């Protein structure tokens, strides 16, 4: 999905260099989970 309001983990990581050296395996699913939660909430407002 090409949108400024939805970022993939890879895009997010590229925008946040401060995460280098952090526990990426633990961080990634959490960031993705809330990105998707907002997407689902937004879309549910139109269903």
């Amino acid at each position, binding site marked *: *999905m*090409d*949108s*400024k*309001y*939805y970022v993939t983990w890879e895009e997010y990581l590229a925008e946040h260099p401060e995460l280098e050296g952090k526990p990426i395996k633990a961080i990634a699913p959490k960031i993705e989970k809330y990105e998707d*939660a*907002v*997407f*689902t*909430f*937004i*879309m*549910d*407002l*139109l*269903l």
Partner: protein
Amino acid sequence: MIDAVAMTNERNQMFRDLFSGKTPKRVPISNPATQDFAIQYAGLDLAECQWDLTKLEPVYDKFCQDFITDTYPGGSIRIPSHYQILGSTPIVMSSSGFMQHPEVVGLLAEEYDQFIASPYDCIVETILPRLYTELNGEPGKVAMALAKAMRAHSDDLAYLGTIRAKMNAKYGYAAMAGALTEAPFDFMADFLRSFKGISGDVRRYPDKVAAACEAVLPLMIKKGTLPNPSMLGYTFIPLHMAPYLRDKDFATLYWPTFKKLVETLAGMGQNVQLFVENDWMRYLDYLYELPENTIMRFEYGDAKLVKEKLGDKHIISGFYPITLLQTGTKQQCVDKAKELLDILAPGGRYWWQADKSVINFESKGPVAENMRAVLEYVHENGTY
């Protein structure tokens, strides 16, 4: 004493068999009545219970106790709190407590190109602020409204999920996960262009309608994707606009992206349940083309013709007219259930559901008693 775990296992197996095209032990049943009905049946205030969800556990317990079903009954996707916080215009509570969807226009005809260029950006920047008043204002206030609404929605879903888990544990329902999405054309119609708007667009701007459906397809796929696709889950897709289209408009504007949506979801290994609203009898050859074991719950039409044309490939459901529960005698209601069992059950691939949901309960009316009789009849006589 009910052995709920054993019942869940048995029901799970029935649905695994049904969804994979095998003949199950018996015809699975889903109670057609909704949470709205359950609240009224318990004698409580509809509006108050939807705001104060703590009142719902005894409501569901009575509902589950009194009406046999294989899947968790009720449920609601229209919980009022977050709609109120956001200043919703497309979903509003009526004076009687029912959540209703007035005709709205979220996208203007001159905004098609903006939508086609980036549907999700257009939704966030243009459509939602038009439809939800609290999302149209100062950025700080918008952020606060969105945060409050998401928290309210999350809390409400978590609470309803707790009730559901308790009822599943007590009554042994099948453990099914679900997702919701729409055919791209229906998505463009329902909250964006409106019934009236899209009906004019198919004549005035058919190319833009087609392009918009293609553009929004990835969002519809993502919205309909289950976190963990399995044989016990399904994506629910209610179908709206096709019966109101000319055949050629259906073929060029509705069908292509709808077919891609269903094929993509099925390709991920998940089931798809279509709610085939209104009368689709002129589109049965199209429906046959969908992936094997697509679940199709029909509202109107010829059950015999559907069984004949689709029954060897797809899973058929619906057709039972809930209006009969209001107008018919108990015997007439049971006779109708028998008629549909005789037509649709042979060979499997049949899930008993009604043609639409039962939302209204009148304490002196016949619906509850007739519905109980029908559910019990199908449960006792649907064994293979």
